[in-house]
Structures are given as structure tokens and as C-alpha cells.
């Protein structure tokens, strides 16, 4: 009772990265609160699934194994969580801000009348004073996220309703194995008791999942282009630089919206979060949603002809110049000086 829960997203028999990251974050929150970390696995043929998650410090794993639970559909997974949570009354529930998490989270929150905050970039424990009601709440989950187009950062709390729910994007939290031999309990639930037959109404007819085309998240060097690249052709110059530096190419939302590159390369709150050792921002002004996805980069270089671009304030090197001029020079002098 009153524990921290993580919903595990499972593709086939593999637990998603984002869920492992949330286990590490959930472990941290549970330690602060002095409670246990529990996880929910719902899918099909899940024998041995605990091996993937226990090392992250899971005290109790709830397994729901039935043929209809994979591929994911909304109603059965909602019933699993809603009915389990009615029994277990968790204080916190975390899930990935993925297509599945963003389909499932709101439905569960609506059924339980609990607050849900999407796309959190940070989670903390703290107190909250409701001045109107003259009430102080201890140990609430601070759900921190950029809002209003990234012009503000809001801290959201759910004072009265449980669980306090939050979704977090992949790559925002860091996964860390706590103990390879961590011994948690595995509970296999009878799915029929939780999911009525009438829930299986949506049929998945066809499904294509491809491995990602690039490794933006794990790349040690990221070169990102913004609207300032001017055109798709202009943007393509970044791939030349990336080839030289063995880097991956990312983009700001503005560049993606303008059609300069594919959506899956978007860096920021509503895209990928990256932590490279070197980040080169080319023609990116640096809205907070973008900053949220790259601020933990080791060294940040900003190339911008606007000396007042917000991104310059977090950059280690600011190059005042146009990308058309500077990027070819970076390629040229790298070729001359490397080796």
C-alpha cells in the first residue's frame, strides 16, 4: 500500500528503455518517501520478465500474462491498472510519455479521478501549502514541466487525489542498475479477475515496428539545426559535418515543422532528450522546450548570427556568424587538423 508504481512498457518480451529509466527514478523517490517500489508488467508470454527489471531495485513485480494483452490496446491495460490500483492504492504512478503511456495514462487518471501531468522533465518530493484551505501537505510529488509553449516552467502537485501520476519521455531520466542480484517478489495475477472479456474490443490487424534509423540518443556528438538553416538544402550541410565528426544530426521543432528534416530527429521536450559530450547548435534560437532536451550536454557550441539568441546564454562557445559561413569552415579546418 502507498507505494511508488512504474508501468512497464513491453514490446514483445522486452521492457522499454523508458520504463527502466523510470524504475531508477521511482527507486529514488521511494527511498526518499521510505516506501517500496513496485512495477506492473502486462503482456503476453512474460516468463522471466523479472530478470530485466529486478536489478533496478523493484520490491514487487505484478505480472499480468494473457494472450490479449499484447499488442497493447487501451481498455485491457486500463482495467489492469485501475483494478490493481483500487486494491493497492499507490501514492505515485510513473509511465513513459510514449504513444502507449499517453494513451493509457489519461484513461487511468480519468477512471480514478487522479491528477496526471504529461511530459515531466523533473520529479521531486516536497511540501505544498494550500493557503486558501490553510492546509499543508507533506511529501507530495512535484511534477515539473515546461508549459505554455515553453515560456514558463510549471510545478504541478496533486494534493488530494491518488495516485499522483506523471509521464516522462525516454532519455529524460537516467537508468542505473541498483544491484544485479536484487531480490524482489513476483506476483502473478489472474488476468480474468482484472480484465472483463468486453475490454478486448479493439483488434490490431497489422503492425510494423522498425528499429530506429539513427542513434541520436546515444551519440557522443550531436549537431542540431534550427530554423536558421534556412532550407532543407541548407540543413543537409549538417549531415556533411556530422559525417566528418562521426556525429548524429538533430533538429529543433521549428526546423522539423518547416520540413527541413524528419520528425524523429527532433530534440527537446516533445522530442528526444540527448546528453552528448559535444552539442553544436546551428541556427537554433533556443526555446525552453529545446533547451530541456539538450541542456545536460557536456560542451555546447552555438552558431548564430543573432548575438542575443537565448541558447547563447547556456553555450560554452558562441560563434557570432552565419551557419553558411561557419559550418563549411568547421569541416575544412577539421579535415586539416585531425589525424
Amino acid at each position: 500500500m502507498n507505494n511508488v508504481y512504474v508501468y512497464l512498457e513491453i514490446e514483445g518480451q522486452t521492457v522499454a528503455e523508458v520504463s527502466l529509466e523510470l524504475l531508477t527514478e521511482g527507486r529514488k523517490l521511494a527511498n526518499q518517501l521510505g516506501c517500496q517500489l513496485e512495477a506492473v508488467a502486462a503482456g503476453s508470454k512474460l516468463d522471466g520478465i523479472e530478470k530485466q527489471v529486478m536489478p533496478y531495485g523493484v520490491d514487487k513485480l505484478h505480472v499480468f500474462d494473457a494472450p490479449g494483452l499484447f499488442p497493447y490496446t487501451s481498455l485491457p491495460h486500463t482495467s489492469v491498472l485501475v483494478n490493481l490500483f483500487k486494491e493497492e492504492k499507490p501514492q505515485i504512478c510513473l509511465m513513459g510519455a510514449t504513444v502507449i503511456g499517453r494513451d493509457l495514462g489519461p484513461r487511468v487518471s480519468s477512471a480514478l479521478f487522479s491528477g496526471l501531468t504529461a511530459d515531466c522533465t523533473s520529479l521531486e518530493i516536497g511540501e505544498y501549502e494550500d493557503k486558501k484551505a490553510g492546509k499543508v501537505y507533506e511529501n507530495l510529488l512535484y511534477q515539473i514541466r515546461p508549459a505554455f509553449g515553453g515560456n514558463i516552467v510549471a510545478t504541478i502537485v496533486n494534493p488530494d487525489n491518488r495516485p499522483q501520476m506523471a509521464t516522462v519521455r525516454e532519455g529524460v531520466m537516467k537508468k542505473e542498475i541498483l544491484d544485479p542480484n536484487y531480490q524482489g517478489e513476483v506476483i502473478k495475477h489472474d488476468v480474468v479477475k482484472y480484465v472483463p472479456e468486453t475490454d478486448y474490443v479493439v483488434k490490431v490487424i497489422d503492425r510494423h515496428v522498425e528499429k530506429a534509423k539513427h542513434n541520436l540518443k546515444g551519440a557522443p556528438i550531436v549537431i542540431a539545426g534550427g530554423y536558421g538553416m534556412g532550407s532543407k538544402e541548407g540543413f543537409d550541410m549538417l549531415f556533411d559535418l556530422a559525417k566528418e565528426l562521426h556525429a548524429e544530426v538533430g533538429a529543433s521543432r521549428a526546423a522539423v515543422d518547416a520540413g527541413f528534416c524528419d520528425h524523429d530527429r527532433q530534440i527537446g521536450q516533445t522530442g528526444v532528450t540527448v546528453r552528448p559530450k559535444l552539442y553544436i547548435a546551428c541556427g537554433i534560437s533556443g526555446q525552453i522546450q529545446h533547451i530541456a532536451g539538450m541542456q545536460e550536454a557536456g560542451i555546447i557550441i552555438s552558431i548564430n548570427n543573432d548575438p542575443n539568441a537565448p541558447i547563447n546564454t547556456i553555450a560554452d562557445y558562441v560563434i557570432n556568424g552565419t551557419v553558411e559561413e561557419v559550418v563549411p569552415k568547421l569541416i575544412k579546418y577539421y579535415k586539416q587538423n585531425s589525424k
Partner: protein
Amino acid sequence: MSLKIVVLAKQVPDTRNVGKDAMTAEGTVNRAALPAIFNPEDLNALEQALRLKDAHPGSTITILTMGPGRAAEVIREGLFRGADNGYLLTDRAFAGADTLATSYALATAIKKIGEYDIIIGGRQAIDGDTAQVGPQVAEKLGLTQITYAEEILNINEETKRITVKRHIDGGVETVEGPLPIVITVNGSAAPCRPRNAKLVMKYKRALGAQEKVAITKDGATLPYAEQYEKLPYLNITEWSVADVDGDLKQCGLSGSPTKVKAIQNISFQAKESKTLTGSDKDIEGLIVELLENHTIG
């Protein structure tokens, strides 16, 4: 088979085009400086609805929106593009709603509309980016949902089931679900068709009650006043909490489990940085420095 379609649409500040004057000197958001627009993914949803109407003659499209009086603009825009009617949920009691209280209000209004086969809206609104309202409306109505839809492929009139192609992480999926259903549409779906000139002529004077009050508040007479009696479709219906038999406790702030504890305006913490020019000397110096400290190989 003719369909009853409800399109959920929201008027949002255009957060994608935030100019320098979008923040006030005190660091708060200057809403007046941001243009109000039809939420982009709701337009993708409207297009899917219009295609269904094309394929199933006799279908009707109802736009449902919630907001202040000026949000009637969204309904007018929907009428210009082929919607049949619309309702504006507007009441001070709705103010301060989080996604749960918003979906309660919308679900209550949909029950008031009564007949529906498909409820369709954008995946998310650009002022919040939460993607929560669609699934929460579905839950409140006891319907299933298909989110992140890219295209409605067909409706089987016999089985009353709908087939939808949807985006999933790393791929696509085709799913089939029963009517009535809630669908949210991804921005990668087909863009919305432009306004229809004939419909613009027909509906250009359509106004909500609050808009009429705004026009006449300084004693001005309402232009073409007689038309609003003769042509009922020019009156955009406004609904209050009472009109949809809503429970005040579940609306607005009191119906919102989430509370905003703090708002921090963005001011970046400057760290010490080197400023370079685009000159050959500066760029070469930077490359040499990065090579020397093994930042690049």
C-alpha cells in the same frame, strides 16, 4: 450509413510563433500579443471528419469547443470548411480547468448532443501538449479510443466497426474498433482542406451571443440584426454549465485534481562562455582546441 460526428476543437494561443513581445516586462506571458488560432491537430481531425462526410452522404459534423466568447471563431472556421453546426461551452465556472475537468465538461456536452457515432479531435493542443483530453473524454463516456490516428481507412456498415491506421513508437499499426468511438488525430495526418467560398458567404456573419454583446456594448446596433432571426444557423449556440446539466463541483478549478504550485518564468542562467567570430582564425582555433582536449576525435 450516415454518421453523426462530433469534432472537438480548441482555440489556442499560437505558441509556435512567440515573438519578442510575447513576454511582459514582469516576465509573465502576454496573451494579448499571441494570435489565437484553431489548434493545428484539431484541423487534421476536422479533415478526417469531412472525408467521412464525403464518403457517407447525409452525415453531419458538429464542432464542440470550450472557451471564452471569442472561441466562437473556431466554430465559424469549422462551418467555413464544411461542418454543419457547433456548440461553444462557455461559463466562468469552467475557468481554471485542468485536463480532467475539461474532459468532464466536454463529455457532459457530448451527452447533451445525444447522438454520436464518432468523436474526433486532435491528438493534443499546442498550448499544453498533454494529449490527455481525448482519452479522458472516452473514459467518461465509457467508449473505447484510438489515439495517434493517421488515417481512417473505412467503416464497415454491417458490423459498425471502423478501421484506422495509427502512429505507434517506431512504426505504424492498423486497428479496428467498434462505433461509437473516440479518435484523436496525429499531426502527420492529411492537412485540412481550405475554406469553401460558398460556405464563407453563408456563415460569415455567424456570431455567438457574447460576440454580439461585444459588438453592441457601446450602444452600437448589431449590423444585419434582422438576419439573425430569419436565419437561425447564423446564431452560434452557447452552452453554460446549467445548459449541459453539469455538476459544478466537477468543473473548473474545483474539478481539477492537479494544482499549480509554482510558475517559473524562463531566464537562462548564463554560464561563462567564449565568444568567437566566424573568421578562419577563430574557427581553426576552436577546432584545434577541441581536438587537443579530445572532445572530437
